[in-house]
């Protein structure tokens, strides 16, 4: 034991240094520095400009958990809401973000409506740099209608519910993914009666 004591001391010092260094790196831009919500937006059909009612909007927060020998990016929280009759959504993230541990990332968003290309990879707008677009007044999200069943099938393969427990945490998303599957002739994904 005596032989390991110096090593442990060095280890503790280094760990402290590691934590301090983390506070001053550019990485902090990725982490929430303060609560940024609520998050707002409006979802419309890119062609007709009509609001999309009942589109599901998922906000997902990751965090970095730093362990003694490693760091992992892991699920922290998730919220889903549906757009209202005007295609508008608001995600009140106050509780999540105020209680968020250190090294919690800005939320990532997924917006999906059956028959449409989803956000953030298939939307017509906003495009380009989209970091933080739902903060403050929010933004209008234009989703394009997908044309062929094959296009919709390929799109489905790119849809990922992100959370470790989608059936419980994002039931509306899973329900709509199922609707999309059935409408293009695929077998339903969900067990009967769920979610």
């Amino acid at each position, binding site marked *: 034991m005596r032989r390991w004591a110096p*090593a442990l001391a*060095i280890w503790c010092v280094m760990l402290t240094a590691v934590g301090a260094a*983390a506070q001053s790196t550019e990485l902090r831009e*990725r982490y929430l520095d303060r609560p940024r919500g609520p998050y707002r937006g409006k979802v419309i059909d890119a062609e007709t400009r009509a609001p999309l009612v009942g589109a599901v909007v998922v906000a997902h927060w990751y965090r970095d958990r730093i362990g003694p020998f490693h*760091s992992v990016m892991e699920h922290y929280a998730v919220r889903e809401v549906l757009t209202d009759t005007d295609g508008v959504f608001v995600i009140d993230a106050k509780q999540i973000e105020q209680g968020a541990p250190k090294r919690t990332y800005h939320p*990532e968003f997924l917006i999906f409506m059956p028959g449409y290309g989803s956000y953030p990879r298939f939307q017509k707008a906003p495009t380009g*740099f989209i970091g933080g677009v739902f903060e403050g007044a929010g933004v209008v999200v234009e989703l394009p209608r997908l044309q062929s069943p094959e296009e919709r099938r390929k799109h489905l393969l790119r849809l*990922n519910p992100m959370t470790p427990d989608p059936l419980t945490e994002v039931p509306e998303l899973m329900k709509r993914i199922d609707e999309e599957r059935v409408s293009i002739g695929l*077998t339903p994904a969900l067990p009967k009666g769920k979610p």
Partner: protein
Amino acid sequence: MIRYVSPTVLISQLVFAAGTTSAYEIETHRLVSEVAGPRSQADDVLKNHLGVNEGFAKVVQSFSLSFWMSDGAKREDNFLRLLNHFHNPLAVGWSQAGLLESIGQSSIMWGQNTGQGIPSWSWRDVRQRYFDALTKPQSPERESSLAKTFEGLGRQIHLIQDAASPAHVRNDPHLFYNYENLVDRVRVDDPPTFDGWLAGSPDVPGAPDPRWSSLDPNPLAIIAVARLIDSDRYSGGNPAVTMTGLIGLAEYTNANFFSEDRVFTENDVDPQKRFPFPNRASVVEQDFDIQVGGTTVKRRYFVKAADGATGYRLATVGLLREYHQRFGLDWTRFRESPALDEGVYRDYAARLIPRAVAYSSALIDYFFRGRIAASGEDTATIIGNISEEPINGTFTLYYDDANDVRRPVPGATWTLALAPGESAEQLRFTPPTSPAPKEAGRYMLVFRGALGSEPDAVIGRQVMISSTLIARLIKRKDATPLRGFDVRAIDVQTGQTLSAHITDDEGRARLDWNPGRTALFIPSVNQFPMYWAGGSTFVSGLEGAHAVQAAEVDAQGQVTVLTPIVSSDWPERIEPCTGQPMFQQIPNSTLPAQSSPVSEGVFLTIFLTYGVNLATFVRDDNGRETVLCGLTSPSCHDPAGSFIAEDVGRLGQVVGHLVRDVFSRHTAMLTDPDGRPIGDALCSNEYAEVETLPVSVVER
């Protein structure tokens, strides 16, 4: 040899190595995998080889196979597994190629280490899960194993993707801000740029040279996928080789990129940090416009200009570089601190991410590269190797019963060694009957064994192998083949004709059949249709027919049916003068005169005329009458035409009566050789009668 590592060094290494060690962020792995999967052949194999019609979109346990693969790529970083995701291609050997030689195992060896823990996700473990997905009895077990197969593939390609991260191949625990963070930030905030990296570009080679899998295996990790990470062709002195397609991804990344803490370390005193390329001779300096706080400014970069890949920003030129040059400072004692900024990392990602996708696809393709086929029928099955590599192992047929329970077909296992394009023919098996298959003829052919250099590969192929039997009709009386007769296989449950064929010269007809559910129908050997009822018995209706069992088929695939050919018989009286039948079943016929010599120049000549006004056959069992002929009929039908199949079992028995209104004329006289009468006729008798005669069954 076990190297001695002092506790202090070890703990220090652990802290630095693992304190915040990470890989491409997990969502980056997910997206790379989402793109790599569909680019591979897996979707085609699922749809066209395994009968999984929805391919990657197939849902298992509420999620698509695509999800399971990308989820596996995410999960591979869980807990301390990530310490085994490093590989230094310039290490003395692969057993020292892990993080800082001793912290973790080389990612290559980790990927092939069956002792990873519980559960283990090594290549062989994934192979086992694939085997389970093809062979487990219960459908939920198979589906679960299929999901785990794809999760395992996700974990395997995670290791490939990490080889496209400089820190993972340059022995760099890469604390805090690093390439992977930048890539992930672009993923979140600038999806079009990230998607562009995923898509690659024409000037960035995609797939590795297909010969990668033919490189000699390294005994420490014999599965060829090791070569996707390290081909052992880059020695540290030949960076140009990393620009060929025949190169491991770790070698390409190691030789051409820096990681945060391994910048220009060609002369580093620490051998764990020393990497010969890129070095200061590999670069030129060049100014670039960059945006800082919304303002365009110039920043000077080292641009890679030699020694392998070229044409991108390798690092920033340190702020003190100018002083260094102006005052001729000793650069070995003066750190000018080049940095890896966002521009550098974007240039890296544009070259590394497409390779991560392409090499991931290559691994998936390698997993599913085995191709087999089967055709023919159970009595003459053909199994072929349509892979590009030889195979040597065991082929087994499985079938699903009505409850979706998958079962091996008894006796349908063959050990075969087949060269590419070669097939084995004339294989035989007995189609399963108990329990009956859900769909006759549909099987899952599963190979397990050596595929090229891989010792324990697994290949699956859904196949249709028709079941055939040879119905051989033999005339019971003299065992001669019955040639040219129609024989049909009838489904006993539906009455549907499965197949029909005419017997050949040997009396054989090859028929598709469903063992245990098929009856043989023989419509024309006799004048009445017959279903075989087993042995030499026959019935007239399908309900009494015998369902042929697989066990009845002999070694030649034949079922021999001894078939009696029957006709009718009834007694005819003899006319006393002419000695000929008093009546015959011949409507209104005067027969040609019959002459026979009685002495020299004298003949006995007989003239016969027969006629039938009406002849009817009446069955005794049901009284059914059948008119055989009338006054104007050209001929009379045989009463045997009114027999039924059951009558075959009544040989010699009376089954009905012939009721007929007949007449005849019998004349006999002596004639000379020219036919002229000699004297008066010996007799000239006419008969007319309505008679009833018993008709019995006789075998011909």
